[in-house]
């Protein structure tokens, strides 16, 4: 996976919890169908509008709640990366472990508006609002975390280290397969 992502941004608010993105009824579905219910109540119909390569921008306390693997649903939808003013740390780790780039950017929801094009580079911490012509940088994440994202999350790494059949390595970079393999959480 790339540490750089660029695309049309969708701006959401504060305190978006895991149940708003991955409700209990969707946990009974296979990942492709479950992904169709992300933000089912806070922004009905969004999963029909979002396109592969788009970026989700959120406010404070993004992802409070469950351990259920919401990041894998964003991968399923083709979301290129997550940006938030503040992440719940469990939710942030789930993104890293699913190989989904995530950047903490204070004031992200005022720096970006719905439909802007944003470019984000975790390798040096820089961001740019291509529509508004604004740019800046945030502290770079530790190499240890960047390496996990760059390698597509923890599951491909486990295959590379011999914990899973080596031939699965490439397939596991497909988040859907990885998610099914590791199971679900709560």
């Amino acid at each position: 996976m790339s540490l750089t992502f660029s695309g049309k941004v969708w701006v959401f608010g504060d305190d978006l919890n895991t149940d708003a993105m991955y409700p209990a009824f969707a946990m009974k579905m296979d990942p492709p169908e479950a992904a169709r219910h992300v933000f089912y109540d806070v922004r009905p119909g969004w999963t029909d509008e979002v396109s592969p390569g788009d970026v989700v921008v959120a406010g404070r306390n993004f992802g409070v709640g469950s351990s259920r693997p919401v990041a894998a649903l964003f991968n399923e939808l083709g979301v290129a990366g997550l940006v938030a003013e503040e992440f719940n740390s469990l939710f942030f780790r789930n993104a890293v472990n699913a190989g989904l780039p995530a950047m903490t950017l204070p004031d992200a929801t005022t720096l970006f508006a719905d439909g802007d094009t944003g470019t984000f580079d975790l390798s040096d911490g820089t961001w740019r609002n291509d529509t508004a012509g604004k740019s800046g940088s945030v502290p770079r994440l530790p190499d240890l975390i960047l390496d996990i994202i760059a390698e597509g999350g923890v599951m491909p790494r486990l295959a590379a280290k011999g914990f899973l059949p080596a031939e699965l390595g490439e397939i596991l970079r497909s988040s859907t397969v990885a998610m099914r393999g590791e199971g679900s959480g709560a």
Partner: protein
Amino acid sequence: MGMTIIEKIFARKAGLDAVGPGDTVVVDIDMTVLIDLQFATMWMEPLKIHDPDKLAIVMDHAVPAPSLKDAAGGPRARKFAAQFGIERFYDVGRHGICHQVIAENGLARPGEVLACTDSHTCAGGAYNTAARGLGPAEVYSIMCTGSTWFQVAPTVRYELDGVMPDSVSGKDVFLHIADAYGDAANLNLEYGGVGLASVPMHDRRTIATQGAEVSADFSTFEPDEVLTAFLDEHGVTGYHSASADSDATYVDVRHVDLAALEPYVAKPGTVSNNGVPVSRLGRQRIDQAFIGSCANGQLEDLAIAANVLRGKSVAPGVRLLVTPASQAVYREAMRRGYLQDIADAGGVVTNSTCGACFGYHMGVVGPGEVCVTSSTRNFTGRMGSTEAEIFMASPATVAASAVAGYITDARSVTA
């Protein structure tokens, strides 16, 4: 420089002299717990795992299986446990909600690190354990490698002062704190102080469990004689507890006067900055009352409920559901007559499972309904319909509300 409890445990486990906020550490995990949901999808069997003695499997979220998908997970879990020689396999019948099973079996040990695939794993902080809920991929990874990384967060210290009144429980303490201070994302919570001695272990577990609701990383209690007595009862030996240094650095120190607290309720949506003393809520009717979950399905919680309900009846039109946190809790509550009291009052006692707490099976609430729950989470849609309202309160308040038909605290129905 002094260290907080979490910093001290991390330093020990990472083999470092000291760690502080902002550090990224790689630590060995002492115990890793998998849950049933991990096996319900297309579980991929690993070629090797780190250490079967540092692994446990608990069947809890969806048992007995409410769907074919969940039913498919059971055999995978059994096969995996047998193949890899995992002795700590808590299958249906000796199962329970993972955090209760962890406590009963001494899997959360003072000064050690515990990882589990459920966000309320911070429950283990009651036992002075650095316990974290992690995602399924990460727990799978730890199962294989035996270690993971943490970014050390700053710590907030709660100094508990005074003596907790009988009418107040750990739930009320937590709901007060969540209302007063709000979210704690990317912060650790640490509890101690002279008032801690008046907070029993089951109340500490409730408080530690609910750290996830304010988005905290770890929530950990100081070790003391009350904890030692609990561990002795459960046969836990050979541990090295971790106390905060007197010169530890905190991002904030907050005093809570336990003696001044009264029963609290959180209004629907979130517990953060959204609570009110029950006495000031006004008359709020209810359709369902739920006592259960890792936070409040403990034996003591069922005793409290039974005491409120004994000789009384659940109000017409109200459903009271009671879910013991484990099969062991269920059996002991039955032996002591608590389940009889609850059922005689018109309550429905269910098998042990996470069930209604996460709106997955048994006790799902419909549009327009109001539930008062002692469980862990009151997000919109958490227990079913997004058009249902979920209030959160202590087991005593929930039991009293079931009798009254509206939210009220136990002081109004016990006499």
